[in-house]
């Protein structure tokens, strides 16, 4: 089913990908006492996607992730992970799920290797693989020197890395990460990004939520924007951006006093709107094709404008989110 624009109540919002869907949320709805935290959410995420779930605090991101990993039962609808209904067969589904939340609580009275060994057994990893898996994960999260140390004595950053290790100890097909970088220092964030990219390359499908949009920029392959329990947009980043920005934001810089000339030329050119010019630079929206963009530049140069810079202002996830949240693109 093609991506349909992500309107509320849509049958399903599919993120196009390479293979079969690993995460399917079907008609998901969760009500608390007098709140509707998630409302009729349909989402399908194929294998090897990194899907960023963005939205303000209280948008329903955490509830969605908690339902997807079996911590909450939906009021209606269902979450299917790797073909298994999470509510019906939670233990089977959870073998495919690695879950990480914004807090990294660990058993402080265990040693590092004991902690990972415990979760490897709890996730029913094959006995003969456990030792190698534990050592491998300890290396992945750079805790080799602390292998036999009690967790109680680790720094906060180390405990966070250990938490990440716990989530991947059973090599899950799906990682559900709820604000995983909150509290991490910049270096640890970079390491987390690299680790997640590597996991994606290994075929892991990742659903990651955050309200810090720069955290997801250049990292997620797809995004979904949630507000008040509804998915207002979802899809691959470039497609969502293109769908919402048919008129591209352009920026021009010049040398000399050519403002009146530029204004006249732009006003005379088709597909140009929302012109804002000041001394030496300006912005406008342009809905023309790439050929027309080149013609516009040639026209300005031909009119004697000494163009210094000319180009499209790249839309960030943050820009898109801000527009959506201000209902500019709904």
């Amino acid at each position: 089913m093609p991506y349909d624009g992500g309107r509320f109540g849509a049958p399903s919002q599919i993120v196009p990908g390479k293979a079969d869907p690993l995460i399917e949320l079907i008609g998901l709805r969760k009500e608390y006492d007098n709140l509707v935290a998630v409302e009729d959410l349909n989402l399908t995420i194929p294998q090897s996607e990194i899907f960023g779930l963005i939205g303000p605090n209280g948008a329903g991101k955490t509830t969605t992730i908690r339902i997807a990993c079996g911590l909450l039962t939906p009021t209606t609808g269902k979450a299917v992970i790797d073909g298994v209904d999470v509510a019906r067969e939670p233990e089977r589904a959870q073998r495919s799920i690695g879950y990480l939340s914004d807090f990294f609580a660990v058993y402080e009275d265990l040693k590092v290797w004991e902690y990972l060994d415990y979760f490897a057994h709890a996730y029913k990893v094959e006995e003969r693989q456990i030792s190698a898996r534990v050592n491998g994960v300890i290396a992945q999260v750079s805790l080799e020197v602390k292998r036999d140390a009690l967790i109680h004595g680790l720094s906060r950053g180390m405990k966070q890395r250990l938490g990440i290790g716990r989530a991947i100890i059973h090599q899950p097909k799906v990682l559900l990460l709820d604000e995983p970088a909150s509290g991490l220092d910049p270096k640890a964030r970079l390491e987390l990004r690299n680790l997640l990219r590597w996991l994606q390359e290994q075929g892991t499908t990742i659903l990651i939520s955050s309200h810090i949009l720069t955290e997801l920029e250049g990292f997620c392959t797809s995004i979904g924007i949630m507000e008040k329990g509804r998915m207002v947009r979802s899809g691959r980043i470039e497609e969502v951006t293109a769908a919402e920005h048919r008129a591209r934001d352009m920026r021009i810089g010049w040398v000399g006093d050519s403002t009146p000339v530029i204004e006249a030329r732009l006003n005379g050119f088709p597909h140009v709107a929302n012109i804002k010019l000041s001394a030496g630079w300006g912005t406008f929206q342009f809905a023309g094709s790439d050929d027309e963009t080149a013609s516009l530049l040639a026209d300005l140069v031909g009119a004697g404008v000494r163009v210094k810079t000319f180009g499209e202002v790249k839309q960030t996830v943050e820009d898109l989110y801000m527009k959506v949240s201000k209902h500019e693109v709904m």
Partner: protein
Amino acid sequence: MLKFWRNPEFVRHVRAELRPARAVTVAVVVLFLCALIGLACWSERQSMLTNAENSAPHIDGKWTAYVETSRQQNSQQTWLLLCKWLFGLQCGLVTFWSLFACAQSVSAERDRKTWDFQRTTSLRPAEMLIGKLLGEPVLAYFGMLCVLPLTLIAGLLGGLSFWSLVAAYGSIIAGALFLGLGGLWVSTLVETRSRGVEMIGGLGLYGFTMGAHAFTTTWFPGLAAFSPVTGLHTVLGLDSAGRRSVVPPLFGHSVPWIVLTLLLDGSFGAGLVLMLVRNLKRDYSEIRPLSRWQAVGCAAFLNFVFYALLKFGPSTGSGTDSRLLATFMVSINGAILFAMGLATLTPHERLKVWWRQRAVGTTSLFSEDGLPWPWLALSAVVAYALMVWGLLAWRLSMDFHTRTLGTAAVQLLVVLVFITRDILFVQWCTLTQMRQPVLKGFFFLCLYYVAAAVVSAIRGISGEASGIAALSILTPVGVFDPRVEWLHFSAGVYEGLALQAGLIAVIVVGISNRLGRVGMVATASGD
């Protein structure tokens, strides 16, 4: 699942709590304590023997013979005394530790925020349960293991049979596991670690289990088997207060105490396991102790246990009157129905869903997510059927009248109506915004009954009849009046019945309004 020593949760506790240094320390401390107790026992016996020997010249020949026998048996009696002390200490330590360690397990994990991570593993609830039940008090079990060889040696040298010692250990372990399950259940019901609530719940359970020993002198002496103390008393020959002479009956046949202990702890423990396995991996807001059918089954089982353990005879000193028994069972069923009602309250969210489905006719009154009252009625019917069966089965042992069945039916109906009103009130509380609505609803009900008693007492000043009438209208106490014959209850009882039926209707309307209002609330955010 049966290989508990490979259970990840059990292994985690063993690793955390039995690191070599700590294990050695515990073993040394425990053995040192045993040595001290041994010395105390030897000292006591020696002192007793010396006193007896000193008194012998002043008393007749029988005393001299007794002293001689005591001297010959001194060694054996010293070992026996040590064995009894060791068993007593192990019983106290293991049962207490098991209960309180388990009573903090789930709530402490919720507190530390590690619980969600455990819930998202592939561990099944039963595996988590076994791991926690045996793992949380592992230090106490280890201590017991250290004392075990010494206890066995002391017991055997003290003249006890090997099987008596095994039975005594069986009694302690059954009690510890039962209390551990109870503790786990208390812990599951507490959202975060709240030492006060856990302490009250734990002490209540501990007090009931240990105090169950007092049931030996009631109509239901078998209930004393709940207490591991009873098992120890009988197995080790501690026949103080003549309690050893009471033989517990099961369907009128005498059975050994240890068998009854295992049966009771096993069956009630199985009920706790059922509730725990059902709820252990659920979110706190979604906990529902029992399904509706399980609640009906539980009510039937509890009634069944009472009739199975019933004992009539001179030793009870009762009037063995069927009316008395029926009235007693009605009051017991009041408590059972109330507990089952609380256990089957429908969470707000599920009740809303049921309400919407009911509005479009896709679900019934007897739905799992509906209001609890139809199931309370069903439980009461089952309880009444068992009462008929119980009374008829025991009719030859007491002065049975068929009219008793009619009287008991009305008594049970009145109790059912009051319990239904109370449970629906608590259900209504769950639909309000108050925090801990079940607990608060329960307290409101307590307040209501206290107020009813006060009102009746005040009216009683103008005349006893007036006070009793008020009590009969406001509470179900009126139906338990022993002077009533057949269905000739006071008018207050029937007025109260009508009043409560009206109140039930009002509460149901209140619940409907709440659910209707909730359905209209606009979408709001919630993370």
